């Protein structure tokens, strides 16, 4: 067991991927000497050279677009988008080109590209540094979208994402970057669970909390508090937003009869609505209450001094549980 922060785990995971496959290369802004603004790529350019850790021109569409070319040539590019808020200039290349290349070529061409992106709020920074764009990607056929919530998943999932032959949007919960945990580096990529499986982190019987990324820690905290009050919450870390692991969620909801989805992104059009609708379709007779949502509000991300009110917290989760239980 090795204690690592999420940043360190990602760094190690990237290193492993680069060591085991010479076709893996990293591209992004400031990922070379600087090691990225969050230091996720620290030291990698020094060890793997400028040819494999590429400081790209300041052009996100250009980064994704040239990575597509590199992937067509046989490389396995791992892109860093510096912040969630800066991914949108690359949207066309991601949505129209990256997501569809396999489909449009009837399987002849594939683009094993991973796009890493810090996401979510809560770091007290300025505009565009606290976004949650996951739904745009998760609703796009052809993309895979996953997110890690702890160092263990960070370490393994980044390697799984890179090994995947599908394009993967890999979301890193930026305000949890420095959260530490014990990682068993002796396991192997194939022995750990697939990144397309959700994980039941806490078993419970009264209500299911469904969360991912930065809200996992909040949800675990809520579950601990609820337990003190005799309410038994089951906490599921989704991990994968596309595909959704409905099997794991359904099993839980059929048991508890209630669910609350927690995410930082706005409610409208968010993952919560899709999860809620899917669970309602498949567990209609089991649900004692509608699936409820605890999310960021339907506004742009607010100035950081009031972001704590915007972000789901323990109280709002517990309120939602209470509301669910009162149906």
């Amino acid at each position: 067991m090795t204690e690592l922060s999420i940043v360190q785990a990602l760094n190690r995971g990237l290193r492993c991927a680069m060591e085991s496959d010479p076709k893996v290369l990293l591209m992004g802004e400031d990922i070379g000497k600087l090691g990225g603004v969050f230091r996720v790529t620290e030291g990698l350019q020094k060890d793997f050279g400028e040819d494999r850790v590429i400081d790209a021109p300041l052009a996100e569409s250009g980064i994704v677009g040239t990575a597509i070319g590199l992937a067509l040539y046989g490389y396995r590019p791992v892109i860093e988008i510096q912040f969630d808020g800066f991914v949108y200039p690359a949207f066309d290349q991601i949505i129209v080109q990256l997501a569809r290349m396999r489909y449009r070529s009837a399987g002849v061409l594939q683009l094993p590209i991973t796009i890493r992106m810090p996401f979510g709020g809560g770091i007290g920074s300025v505009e565009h540094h606290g976004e949650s764009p996951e739904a745009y990607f998760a609703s796009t056929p052809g993309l895979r979208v996953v997110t890690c919530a702890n160092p263990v998943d960070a370490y393994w999932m980044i390697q799984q994402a890179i090994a995947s032959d599908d394009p993967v949007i890999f979301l890193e919960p930026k305000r949890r970057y420095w959260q530490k945990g014990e990682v068993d580096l002796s396991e192997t990529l194939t022995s750990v669970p697939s990144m397309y499986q959700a994980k039941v982190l806490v078993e419970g019987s009264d209500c299911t909390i469904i969360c991912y990324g930065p809200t996992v820690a909040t949800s675990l905290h809520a579950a601990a508090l609820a337990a003190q009050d005799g309410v038994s919450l089951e906490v599921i870390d989704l991990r994968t937003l596309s595909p959704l692991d409905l099997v794991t969620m359904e099993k839980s909801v059929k048991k508890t009869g209630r669910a609350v989805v927690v995410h930082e992104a706005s409610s409208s059009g968010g993952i919560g609505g899709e999860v809620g609708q899917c669970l309602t379709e498949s567990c209609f007779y089991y649900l004692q209450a509608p699936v409820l949502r605890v999310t960021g509000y339907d506004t742009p991300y607010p100035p950081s001094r009031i972001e704590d009110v915007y972000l789901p917290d323990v109280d709002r989760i517990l309120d939602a549980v209470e509301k669910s239980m009162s149906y």
Partner: protein
Amino acid sequence: MESLEATVQLLSSMGELVDDPQFHSTLDGAALLALYRDMVLVRQLDQQATALQRQGELGLWAPLLGQEAAQIGSARAMQAQDYVFSTYREHGVAWCRGVDPVDMLRFWRGTAHQAWDANLHRFYGYQVIIGAHVLHATGYAMGMSKDGRTGTGDLEKDQAVVAYFGDGAMSEGDVNEAFVFATSFQSPVVFFCQNNQWAISEPTRRQSVVPLAQRAQGFGMPGIRVDGNDVIACHAVTMAALDRARAGKGPTLIEAFTYRMGAHTTSDDPTKYRDSADDELWRSRDPIDRLRIYLRAQEILNEKVESELASEAAYLAERMRVSCRELADPNPLTMFDHVYSGPDARLERQRLEVEAILADQETKVN
């Protein structure tokens, strides 16, 4: 338009050879005849496809009429190891890369998005999103450099990429970003812009107030303006740019100044926005005519060869006509294939749903 640099021309519109201080052609009579053949067949291909669209066999077609020299000249300058990224109009380039015209039709008929193996032909396929593929081309060229597949000094083996796009595309952010990446990484890519003077209904001056080749200087690469209706010049400048790329000296932008003699696509009506006087002027600059005049004068081409070529063209047209009508609709269930590399539970459910619907329809019909 102020002309920064002269337009390279090696064959005048009167069909006479002209000298250029910088570029020279290495093509002998047989090679020129081969280019002529390509142009004639590709024009036939284009006309046949246009006809098939009129007959309701294709959903749409984007004619290359008038751009045969630009496409054939540049494409025949490539070698097998090169790789090509193109738009929806490069049927002539596709032809040179060995793509079966019938496979081209599949896209326009709506039976497939991409109907050939891009890696086999080293021809990526039709890209509809203006400019997007120019970045792919640049990335592909970056890969060649990384793998040491270029710049070794062996021009027979060294690889390069050619990216085709139009005058309209010059305005897209993606194309300009491609220029940034290609120059920053000195990638072996030739940017081949067919300035056919129109982006649907918009004249080139809406996109730029100076010749498009001049854009190159702003990014620190050579820009060449070539007479796009002169197949010999197009061949020569592309050869030079490819050699430069292969030698590891980085990208070049070529502006082939030509004219879209037909409609933008079969859905378009150019009489709405342009003068028929222009059409006439450019008919007198027809890229095929001028090579024919030269080849006839040189007696490389004669009646007999022309009539053999005419039958070859007729045969091609016939084959396209017949095969197009035979192109079967895909099985609807293939809709669910290749979205991902592996199975997907939700898609599996949806596939079953469609299977049931189709079976049901089958039953109803019977």
